[in-house]
């Protein structure tokens, strides 16, 4: 019995062309004869196992299960299409990352962290792709919209849930540096940058910068560090 359930699911997953949820899989069958979740998961696992030696794989994403071409096949398969896949700008990716990690977040908050105005066209693109949506409004004057990511966003990046996102880099720990310099600072100077404030008071900062800072500028460009790579 398991074999034919497996085949039905495989056929459906290939026919539909998008992720299929467990509910939708149940509804492939008449109401009187629907498999339970355990049976479905069992069949799906078996199918997954069948694919290990193949060029395709079965994975679970936010919207359900999907059969897709393996990543290691990319270098051949991508040659089927002339147009290259879209390359997203850093601005778009930074905006998207902020929304993904800090949702719900307003445009103003995004601007505070990035230090630049949020581009309207970027927000529009993200909404058109259905990667972000307005989830609420902040209860302050102006009632700015708060944004969050969608299931389609997770599907696109091959994720089951937000927990699959790569973890954020830790803020540089100032404690270790303090200990090294033996400032005898209070414990609990966490990775939060609030620790920076106040902790540096004990440091002997030069009150007057040394002469080198006031050297007249020779010519324009020579003193500037030149980037050797483009971003």
């Amino acid at each position, binding site marked *: 019995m398991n074999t034919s359930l497996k085949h039905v699911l495989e056929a459906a997953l290939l026919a539909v062309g998008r992720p299929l949820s467990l509910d939708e899989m149940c509804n492939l069958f008449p109401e009187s004869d629907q498999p339970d979740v355990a049976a479905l998961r069992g069949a799906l696992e078996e199918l997954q196992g069948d694919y290990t030696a193949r060029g395709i794989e079965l994975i679970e994403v936010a919207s359900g299960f999907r059969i897709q071409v393996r990543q290691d096949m990319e270098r051949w398969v991508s040659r089927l299409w002339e147009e290259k*896949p879209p390359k997203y700008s850093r601005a778009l990716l930074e905006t998207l990352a902020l929304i993904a990690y800090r949702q719900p977040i307003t445009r103003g908050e995004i601007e505070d962290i990035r230090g630049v105005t949020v581009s309207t066209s970027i927000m529009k693109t993200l909404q058109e792709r259905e990667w972000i949506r307005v989830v609420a409004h902040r209860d302050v004057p102006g009632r700015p919209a708060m944004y969050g990511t969608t299931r389609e966003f997770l599907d696109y990046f091959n994720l089951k849930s937000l927990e699959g996102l790569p973890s954020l880099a830790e803020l*540089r720990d100032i404690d270790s540096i303090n200990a090294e310099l033996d400032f005898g600072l209070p414990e609990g100077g966490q990775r939060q940058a609030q620790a920076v404030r106040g902790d540096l008071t004990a440091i002997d900062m030069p009150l007057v910068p040394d002469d080198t800072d006031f050297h007249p500028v020779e010519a324009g460009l020579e003193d500037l560090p030149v980037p050797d790579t483009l971003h």
Partner: protein
Amino acid sequence: MMSDSDNPTDFPADVPMDAREQPHQVEMPFAIVQGTAMTSLPQDLYIPPDALEVILESFEGPLDLLLYLIKRQNLDILDIPIAAITHQYMKYIDLMENLRLELAAEYLVMAAMLAEIKSRMLLPRPAGAEGEEDDPRAELVRRLQEYERYKQAAEDLDGLPQLGRDVFPTSAQVPERQQTKQHADVDLQELLLAFRDVMKRAEMFTHHHIQMEPLSVRERMSNVLSMMSEDRFVEFHTLFTVEEGRMGVVVTLLAILELIKGALIDLIQAEPFGQIYVKAAGGHADLPEDFETTVDSAQA
């Protein structure tokens, strides 16, 4: 092009002798020009403005630029030499303006902020105020670190396998679909309700057929004759049946006129607007009591 070999002859022939050194330097060169490692910019280096224009436009904002300046010189973000950084930053701003690059206002705001931080650090710390004064650089450092996190996060996000770029959707040809007609089960009650509706509508279409019942004048003539006798007069109006409606009255009148024409009945009237009496012709009928005898029976 660091080689681990001690032997100068192991180098390719085109590498000049002075470059065939034992690698021992700790500072990484940022450029290798014709085999020679460079660790500092030559004084007479010329950078075409176009190149710089492209480079400068690639910054995502003032924070990005500052991060670049810090990282490029391997500065410690937690201990930024504000004066030097401000100086370099301002040079970049000037350059951008000279190249007429559209400078977002944020760059100028940052320039002002850097200048402010620098001045605060220049001011002598009041005696005995230890522990109260925050590091003026603190907020800037916090913002730089925060931005750096998400800049990295954006890169990491882009590194995830993307649908259509790294992994691809699959599909299979589906056989010709058989249109399964969904037959709705019909309830008997529904059927009766539908029938009732039809009947109601049918009723609205029923109309009173006013049928022209063919009233024979001849038949009416016989009727009228049968109602009278030779012996007595009958009042005119009794010959009519109003229930029959107008048609009936008309037919009776026609019948009477025909009978009169045929001299089969007699009509008499005592005076104008008086009662009219009808009698079958022939015979002598006694005139009714109230009949005036001055007028003969009307001949048709």
